[in-house]
């Protein structure tokens, strides 16, 4: 942490005043949140932890009824919600799936999430769903297509979405711009916000031998509506270079905490999700990790955090 604290201080002095005060954020509170896992449904309702928000994967709730809707409905009464899509396939070379947009619209009407986000990636080809977030080349044709798709999503859902920077393992010879330029242009043209996944930034930058802080600094940070933090696994490529895998199966790495602190110093308190999708630990463990994120946020000058949503006593 000592290294990152130093970075924070430097960054804060140099750039804070340059960042616009108006936050075009997500509507989520500038606090830490955790992913809502079915194994924690009952625990959440029984203990009502003091947490900023919960996030769910939209596709898990595209079912007719049953416990998922029962518990999400009850938990939503007490917490703000972030709806995070993993199946919209915004980077696909085919058109956006209108039936999937209809399902998203229905979920948004039902649960009134404070934020909807999706990935700069593709996950379906034709009618085959590949269940992974796959990479796109950063060229003009892809940029145009992604912007058309984001426009269509925002038009259909009648709301601004957040677009998440990906973790990638490969690069395309066809790319003509870097990822930050691509995201900056997509955000500028569509008016969407950025979901800054700091772990993805770290993973991709290690995988492609770039400087993560420089990458993050070149993103449109004034449009960040939410931050994601997660853990990664470590592998090696064919030449023995480190290849980090965005696994969501372990605690947040110290390097990612350092980058996160640097980001906060730049943009101030920001809704931050601790993502854990594999080897999910106890709710208490997730909450402790969320508390660490919240401890890194300077106290907001605005309204007190407690309010009708949070049920603080």
């Amino acid at each position, binding site marked *: 942490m000592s290294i990152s604290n130093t970075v924070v201080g430097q960054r804060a002095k140099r750039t804070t005043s340059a960042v616009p005060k108006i936050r075009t954020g997500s509507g989520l509170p500038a606090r830490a949140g955790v992913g809502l896992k079915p194994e924690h449904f009952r625990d959440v309702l029984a203990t009502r932890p003091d947490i900023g928000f919960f996030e769910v994967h939209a596709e898990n709730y595209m*079912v007719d009824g*049953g416990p998922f809707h029962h518990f999400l409905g009850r938990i939503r009464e007490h917490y703000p919600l972030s709806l995070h899509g993993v199946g919209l396939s915004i980077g696909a070379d085919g058109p956006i799936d209108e039936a999937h947009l209809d399902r998203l619209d229905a979920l948004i009407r039902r649960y009134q999430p404070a934020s909807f986000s999706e990935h700069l990636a593709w996950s379906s080809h*034709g009618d085959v769903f590949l*269940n992974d977030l*796959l990479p796109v080349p950063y060229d003009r044709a892809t940029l145009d297509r992604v912007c058309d798709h984001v426009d269509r999503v925002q038009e259909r859902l009648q709301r601004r979405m957040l677009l998440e920077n990906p973790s990638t393992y*490969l690069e395309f*010879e066809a790319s003509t711009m870097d990822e930050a330029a691509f995201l900056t242009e997509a955000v500028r043209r569509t008016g969407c916000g950025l979901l800054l996944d700091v772990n993805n930034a770290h993973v991709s930058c290690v995988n492609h031998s770039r400087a993560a802080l420089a990458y993050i600094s070149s993103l449109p940070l004034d449009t960040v509506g939410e931050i994601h933090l997660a853990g990664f696994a470590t592998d090696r490529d*064919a030449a023995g270079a480190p290849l980090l895998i965005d696994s969501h199966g372990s605690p947040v790495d110290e390097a990612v905490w350092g980058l996160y602190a640097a980001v906060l110093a730049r943009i101030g308190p920001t809704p931050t999700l601790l993502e854990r999708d594999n080897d999910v630990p106890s709710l208490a463990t997730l909450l402790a990790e969320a508390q660490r994120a919240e401890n890194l946020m300077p106290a907001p000058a605005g309204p007190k955090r407690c309010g009708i949503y949070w049920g603080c006593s």
Partner: protein
Amino acid sequence: MTQATFAAALLTPDLPCPAGLQAWNGSDPTARLAVYRNNVVSSLIDAVADTFPVVQELVGEEFFRAMASVFVRRHPPRSRVLAHYGAEFADFVDGFAPARAVPYLGDVARLERARVFAYHAADADALTAEMLGEAMSSGEDLGALQLVCHPSISVVVSKHAIVSLWAAHQGDGDLSVVDPALPESALVVRPGLDVLVLRLPPGAARFVIALQTGAGLADAAGLAAGETIDFDLPNALALLMSHGALTSVQIPRSRSR
């Protein structure tokens, strides 16, 4: 390189790494593509394993994952909603030659799939004795009454003791005394938040399947009685009602509500 080429390379490990991919250090991109290949196939195998835990216990994890890896490549998901992935798994297991030594494996898969279907099915209130009594005293032909099944229900008919086998794997009953060759039929239903697996008495499976296809009470009971003289209509109705498997009574040709 198109996304079609990339997608094909993900699901077919024998295909070469598509052209146009690179790594900063000039290393062979095949090793990096392997991360995506593994993400796709492993996550889908995990999804299948989540739905069919007893099938996995019956054949062991190693065999199960090998079998599932063939399945996910042959039947990748056709929906972005994975909750119902694996509809073809039981039929696939029936035709999977290395699994033939376990003849009941496919039917256990059908039972597990029915449980996941029930878990996510639409909610509906159960038919009460009062509602049934009201319909029965409506002056209509009792035999023509149509009993409407809960949206979550499935019937799994088997030549094997699938309910006993499944229950033993939940710690309910002793697996060593289960005779897999005894035929059993299962009713799967979720009246509230919990999915129930019930062993159906003789003829009741035929009765429920008839109800599901819209048959009237008399016709459904007739089909069940034609299958076995042991069919007990009051007993079957009591079983279904006490587990919330029926939701309403429709009176054909009568004043609609």
